[in-house]
């Protein structure tokens, strides 16, 4: 194909993969491993994104002596100023990035923890609907909240690596940052899974009543899972906001949650590698479609719609045909297994 920038394509695919894989890993931990059906993934994603966007744009302006009442970051002047000031001070950019990551982890995590209380008093079906609605309410709220730009959102968010002049280098380095966060998330989730905590989580998923009878404080455990999962999801939101250098409420719609669910169902619930696989496949299809669409010209049937029909049907078909997904759940790997080997040899 003429003019097909394959490196650019791969970078954009892997970047999106990196961000979404964090969503699918955490969702798998919550819903696949612990049985906390989380249909509000997008809430924590949005919180993380907006925290980093707001923090960065406001602070960059304020620390550069701009009067934010006169020129808030969501006004055209503010945006222009952000464009000028954004890449001046690398230390400031990176510092704000790190601060945003921490803050979004804590706030998103805390919201996840709070949200678990009223909602987990009822069964998974009611949880699902309530969390979906919470997502929509957050979006409606953001649509009207002036300080974060209401329906326009925030733009020209200074990327931590924005001071790097070459765009290709900048993209690649940022991709590496994202993949580093992905690796961190994966390691944490995997360790938690292959531990007594992971066993306890699975027991809560399998039979809450029996878990209670075995001394597990089920509500606390679920709240904990949501705290951690939501925290990492908030970080993913931060990474997203810097990648697109803009946020607006319509980026945080239920489709985000459904995408993540499709990824874990396809990849295999309870299997972390499966979540990576599901994320890779679905983001690849997404990128390919985005890429092919302009090439097709005008068609009667929009490929965008087709993509969603496929995702919806994918969820249904996988659940019917092979609910375990591509990769099955594996037994928990702890030193206990070694003992077993030794014992059986005798």
């Amino acid at each position, binding site marked *: 194909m003429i003019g097909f920038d394959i490196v650019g394509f791969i970078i954009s695919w892997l970047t999106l993969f990196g961000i979404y894989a964090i969503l699918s890993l955490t969702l798998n931990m919550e819903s696949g491993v612990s049985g906390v*059906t989380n249909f509000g993934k997008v809430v924590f994603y949005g919180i993380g994104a907006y925290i980093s966007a707001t923090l960065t744009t406001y602070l960059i302006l304020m620390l550069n002596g701009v009067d934010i009442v006169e020129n808030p970051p969501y006004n055209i002047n503010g945006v222009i100023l952000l464009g000028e000031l954004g890449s001046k001070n690398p230390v400031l950019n990176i510092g704000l990035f790190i601060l945003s990551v921490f803050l979004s982890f804590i706030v998103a995590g805390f919201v996840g923890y709070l949200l678990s209380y*009223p*909602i987990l*008093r*009822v*069964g*998974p*079906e*009611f949880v*699902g*609907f*309530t969390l979906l*609605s*919470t997502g*929509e*309410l957050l979006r*409606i*709220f953001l*649509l*009207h909240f002036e300080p974060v730009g209401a329906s326009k959102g925030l733009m020209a968010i200074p990327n931590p690596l924005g001071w790097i002049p070459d765009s290709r280098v900048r993209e690649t380095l940022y991709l590496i940052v994202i993949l580093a966060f992905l690796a961190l998330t994966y390691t944490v989730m995997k360790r938690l899974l292959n531990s007594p905590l992971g066993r306890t989580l699975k027991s809560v998923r399998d039979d*809450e*009543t029996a878990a*209670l009878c075995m001394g597990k404080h*089920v*509500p606390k455990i679920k709240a904990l899972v949501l705290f951690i999962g939501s925290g990492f999801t908030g970080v993913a939101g931060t990474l997203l906001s810097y990648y697109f250098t803009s946020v607006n409420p319509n980026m945080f719609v239920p*489709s985000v949650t*459904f995408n993540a*669910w*499709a990824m874990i*169902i396809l990849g295999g619930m309870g299997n972390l590698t499966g979540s990576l696989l599901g994320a890779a496949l679905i983001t690849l299809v997404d990128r390919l479609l985005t890429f092919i669409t302009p090439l097709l010209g005008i068609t*009667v*049937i*929009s490929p965008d*719609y*087709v993509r*969603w*029909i496929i*995702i*919806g*049907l*994918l*969820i*249904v078909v996988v*659940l*019917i045909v092979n*609910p375990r997904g591509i990769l099955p759940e594996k037994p928990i790997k702890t030193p206990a297994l070694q003992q077993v080997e030794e014992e059986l040899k005798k």
Partner: protein
Amino acid sequence: MIPGFTQTMVNFLQYIFFYTVFSLPLTLSYRTTKVINFVHANFITYGAYTAVFLHGVLGNSSIVIAAFLAFVIVGGMAVLDNLLVFTQLQKRGSSPAMVMISSMGLWIAYRYLLYVLTDIMHFYTSKNFVSYGRITYSDIPSISLAEFNLSQAFIASMVATILVVSSLYLILEKTRMGRAMRAISDNATLAEISGIPRNLVINLTWFLCGGITAVGGVLWTSFSGAITPEAGDSMILQVFTIGFIGGLASLLRTSIGAIIIAFMENIGIAFLNTYLGVPVSFRPFLTFIALLTTLILFPPLGAGGGLPYRFRKRGLSQ
């Protein structure tokens, strides 16, 4: 007096009618089939679009024809969903949560399928179906009484609500099929052992529920100025909240829920808007508060697999 009070009252009643027609089938379908069905939102939308396509492509202006066709088409859709998806999953022993997730997958697929259909119809007729205007029907009157102006939508939805409520009552109380539905809601296994053809009754329930909801969608086309493929989705919060208020079990409480939510969304927000300046588009927040309140104060204990009791803080009295 709040400005536009009369109109607000009329809207209040109007919404009671709509919500009743949308929500009663949800409660009925859940309590009989035990499936939380997100496609319910599409029942509304597809019902609306049956009317829209009949009007825009074939020039139909009879609400009765539209309602009839919508009933049959969407009722059939519901039965197909059950046969092809829900029963397959239930046979495999899938948890209710998985069945709900499958219904979410269907929900997305149906929504975008409708977008595709609107594009195709646009291609053939050059009309815009993605946002369709209010339909004026030829077979409903609109009445003016003193200073009240009762629109077509009002009359139609009032008539429909009366019909739906009375026929549901008659079916469930007086017919064998209705009693079979109630038996299955109470104890499906026992009902089956007593000789009730469970699959047949469940499919008929789906047909009925899908059909009634679709008729609601048709009514909606006479009311709403902008009908889109997301029409049902925009109301799903309210409809499910109302169902939850009814505990997804009691049709009477569901109707009360419809009144409560209609009140909050029309009169409640009017008060807040006039006296506290809350924007009208914040209506969903009121409904959400109602939802959380219902879940916290009256959680459907044990329903849908929740903890079979209420987890207490250390209530030890020594």
